[in-house]
């Protein structure tokens, strides 16, 4: 037993360029500017040019709009779960309320889409926040379970009371002027919200949000009302979901119970887990990957939900950091083996 065991370990070191661009000297060379700006431009450019690339196949342009709607939901899930600490399993509630609000404003008051979409975003966010207000003191598993129940409850209530068109839904919602408008409004919304939220979570408000997530007792002890901040977080997240819902109802010219369906709750969560939680850009990446897979599997009916669930499970168990975190680590650091 003379031989000494040679043991090695993997070491991760930040790339030099990352260290330099982190500081105030960010704009000292084109190379460093490119290093900083390239990933962001890739995302923006990619999203802006995708509709043009698919202009020959209108079907996939429709899919692109759906991707954007799911992205909005996924970003809202990520924001709420990883920055405010509320895991909301019921994203369908936001979509459904947004869709119904927009449809009602359009068919009953006769407002054009250019007014109904912003109104539904704000009003819908308000309604969702009011509905969830009593549940805000809950946390962890308890909030997750209640939020899972809300969309189911909403669908049942509409069905049972036969309000808002009952099981038929609201027909005759006005469509959008043309497909370019619907795609670019959605893409623009996704990009603005993505970069806006990244700003927001680094402001003072974002700091309080993260405090609520990590140690709410400490935040409370500092004289800050955590319920107010949770409500604000829920309002931001649900308004994003409602924007998606409002777009959806104008896209399909219809609002119905199926907008409270399970798909809207499970796909954003899967996208967030696959893309990497806590990054905000990760969920968009996840949606770009998952939604097309779901479209390809459309022929197999509900099997696609099963496929999703399996992907979700595999990622959460074997690669829980997600693609975005993995990617940015590779981009910013290199690995080497060192003797110990």
């Amino acid at each position: 037993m003379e031989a000494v065991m040679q043991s090695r370990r993997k070491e991760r070191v930040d790339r030099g360029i990352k260290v330099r661009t982190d500081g105030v000297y960010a704009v000292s060379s084109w190379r460093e500017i490119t290093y900083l700006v390239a990933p962001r431009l890739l995302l923006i450019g990619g999203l802006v040019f995708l509709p043009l690339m698919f202009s020959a196949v209108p079907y996939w342009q429709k899919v692109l709009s759906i991707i954007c709607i799911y992205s909005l939901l996924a970003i809202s899930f990520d924001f709420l779960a990883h920055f405010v600490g509320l895991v909301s399993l019921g994203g369908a509630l936001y979509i459904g309320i947004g869709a119904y609000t927009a449809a009602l404003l359009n068919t009953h008051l006769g407002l054009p889409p250019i007014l109904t979409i912003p109104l539904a975003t704000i009003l819908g966010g308000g309604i969702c926040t009011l509905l969830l207000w009593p549940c805000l003191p809950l946390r962890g598993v308890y909030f997750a379970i209640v939020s899972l129940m809300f969309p189911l409850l909403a669908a049942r209530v509409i069905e049972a009371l036969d309000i808002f068109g009952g099981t038929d839904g609201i027909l005759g919602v006005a469509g959008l002027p043309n497909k370019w408008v619907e795609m670019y409004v959605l893409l623009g919304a996704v990009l603005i919200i993505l970069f806006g939220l990244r700003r927001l979570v680094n402001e003072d408000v974002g700091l309080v949000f993260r405090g609520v997530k990590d140690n709410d007792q400490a935040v409370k002890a500092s004289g800050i009302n955590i319920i107010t901040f949770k409500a604000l977080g829920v309002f931001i997240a649900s308004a994003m979901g409602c924007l998606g819902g409002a777009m959806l109802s104008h896209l399909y010219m219809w609002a119905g119970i199926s907008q409270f369906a399970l798909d809207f709750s499970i796909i954003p969560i899967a996208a967030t887990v696959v893309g990497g939680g806590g990054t905000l850009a990760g969920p968009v990446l996840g949606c770009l990957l998952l939604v097309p897979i779901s479209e390809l599997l459309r022929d197999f009916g509900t099997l696609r939900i099963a496929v999703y669930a399996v992907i979700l499970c595999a990622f959460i168990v074997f690669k829980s950091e997600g693609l975005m975190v993995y990617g940015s680590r590779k981009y910013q650091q290199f690995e080497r083996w060192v003797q110990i």
Partner: protein
Amino acid sequence: MEILIYGLINSVSLALMALGFTLVYGVSRLPNFAHGSLYVTVGFITWLLLNRLGLPYPVAMLISLGLIALVGAATYNFILVRIRGMAISEIIASYAIGLAILEGLRWGGLKGTTLTLPVFAQGSVDILGVTVDFHRLLVILLGALLVGGLWLFVNHTKLGLALKGMAQDERAALTLGIDSDRMAVFSMALGAVMAGLAALVLLPLGNIVVESGYHVLIMAVAVCIVGGLGSWTGAVLAAFIIGFAQILTTAWMGPHFQVVVALLAIIVTLISRPSGLFGRQKELEERV
């Protein structure tokens, strides 16, 4: 009178659905959102054994219970154990497993044709002017037997006491030589068997459909939350409260409101008293 008898039957069915869920949560703090899918799977396996292989009914039931215990143990041993303690990942992963099983079943076997299991006993009897068929009476009997059996098992066998110890304090149980992972696997298998038993008793009353998986999950969660997560007495009591409330709303307002009752019960309980009627969690841990 009708309300009383059908309320009783409904309550016992709810208790049957919820026992497995509350057992697993009580022992290993794992909200098993795949509960409903295990329920449907047992029904499907039994149907396959019965109609494709032509096995006799009792044998088919026993084999499918054994299989579902293996499935439950395997899900814990290979998937859930890796994310133990991360509450949110546990919920998402077990929910995903449940979805995968349910939607896979819908695609694979439960589409188009209606599958039914035979009832245990034909015929019906009049009790104080209300006609009740034998199978529904058997449900009450078997439910009572199961609750009693579980109570005996937990309080008077070594394995049951070990489970109880785990439920009360996992670390203390560990120092006394109880292998917590093995116990968790075992509780998961037992929970799966409970779901299976509920399926075998209740499914002959209706069809084997995927939707019943979701229904069972919602009901189990509702009962467990109202009763207090992880508390068995609470679960049985809550099953009676929700069971009778459902029958009353059906009688007065129509069957559409049955599920609404359960969901409202959850929401009201969580808002007013998150630990449930008999919950043992501390107030501070679950709400601010």
